[in-house]
């Protein structure tokens, strides 16, 4: 029986990882956009993003998730009803969790990317512009490689925090590792055993990620030094 429950818990690990990776992608893309926005010369944009950051980092992840999963559809549906359109929205726990985590961590990623971007020597960009390189090319060839190296520690940290934050989505009813562990714990009356299994899963993921990203950092350092005479 333990084997059954344990394997069910760990099988949900795929779902947890999928959620985390989706949120990572979303937060990275959004975070990069926000980072550029923070460095822009338009004061209103900078202020707006600062406001956004303040709200996101001022409310607990759990409360934000409850807001997105319960309150947001409720508000939208109330509005749709009032407008008489007969439509309604609903978010699945997976999407609500992924979008919420993606948005929350985009605020943290924007910090990481902003300091990374600020540490790329401005001279390189100016030289590239002088050569007439297209902005996309500049980004791809000059900014991104260096940003990847500079932002890696912060990026790793955000990823680790995000993996752990996925446990909160179980409270929305998503049948992830935490949810299955809770079910097993309550069905068998052995909470310690099954929460230990869940804990083991998360620890394995964070350890693997830490070592993996450390190896990546080392490789990026090598590429950085390569070609230097």
């Amino acid at each position, binding site marked *: 029986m333990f084997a059954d429950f344990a394997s069910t818990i760990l099988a949900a690990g795929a779902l947890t990882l999928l959620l985390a990776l989706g949120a990572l992608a979303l937060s990275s893309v959004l975070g990069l956009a926000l980072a550029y926005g923070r460095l822009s010369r338009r004061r209103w944009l900078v202020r707006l993003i600062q406001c956004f950051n303040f709200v996101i980092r001022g*409310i607990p992840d759990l*409360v934000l998730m409850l807001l997105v999963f319960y*309150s947001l559809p409720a508000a939208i549906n109330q509005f749709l009803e009032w407008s008489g359109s007969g439509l309604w929205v609903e978010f699945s726990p997976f999407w609500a969790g992924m979008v919420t985590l993606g948005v929350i961590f985009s605020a943290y990623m924007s910090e990481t990317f902003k300091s990374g971007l600020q540490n790329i020597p401005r001279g390189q960009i100016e030289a590239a512009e002088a050569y007439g390189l297209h902005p996309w090319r500049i980004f791809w060839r000059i900014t991104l490689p260096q940003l990847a190296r500079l932002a890696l520690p912060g990026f790793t940290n955000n990823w680790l925090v995000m993996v752990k934050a996925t446990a909160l989505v179980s409270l929305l009813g998503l049948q992830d590792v935490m949810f299955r562990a809770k079910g097993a714990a309550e069905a068998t009356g052995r909470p310690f055993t099954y*929460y230990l299994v869940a804990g083991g899963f998360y*620890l394995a993921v964070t350890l693997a990620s830490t070592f993996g990203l450390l190896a990546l950092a080392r490789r990026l350092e090598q590429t950085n030094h390569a070609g230097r005479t």
Partner: protein
Amino acid sequence: MNWDVVIENLGLYAEGTWLTIRLSVVSLATAFLLALPLAFLRNSRSQTLRWSVIAYTTVFRGTPLMVQLFLVYFGLAQFELLRSTILWPWLSSPLFCALLVFVLNSAAYTTEIFAGGLRAIPKGEIEAAQAFGFTPLRAAWRIFIPGMLSRTLPVYGNEMIMLMHATSLASTVTLMEITGVARNITLNYYIQLEPYVAAAIIYLTLSAVLVAAVQLAERRFAGFLRLGR
């Protein structure tokens, strides 16, 4: 709109806020005191001591807070042996369990933050202390701790806010802090928007106060680090 429900229950929200504040302050203070000696041990020359601390911080930083909370609150109650010891009156209280987990969790992060701060103290200061014949304890109290605190204030400030946010998880073990109050209202009045928005507003206010306090402290105590930028 059902804001009248929120207004009716303002008393509950106030009690919840008070509990959140108590949880945060007690956990923070205790974790701080625990992390100070651990930070020194983390940089100790003894391999055993260093690796013991690393094991502790790795486990507590590598697993979600929710798993830790459930392991302690639900998990430990599984053991009949434990229930007959004198520890039980403590462990049976959700408040004690929550505080224990928050302290252990926060101390793990704080230890790493402080250890990093200690490593960043300029060698010159350490050598000067030795030259003056400071005893290790005096050196720690007069040189290391202030140096570490002023350098880690921004990151530690962030950790303080994270801990305050983490108290929202206490609602999963029957504690009626802000998030618990909000969830209770949604279950009894069948509304989803107003209770969570009210909770979010309260957290935003608390976060704003905390951020302002940290920035004030930064200016006062870590101002010398900003000079010459």
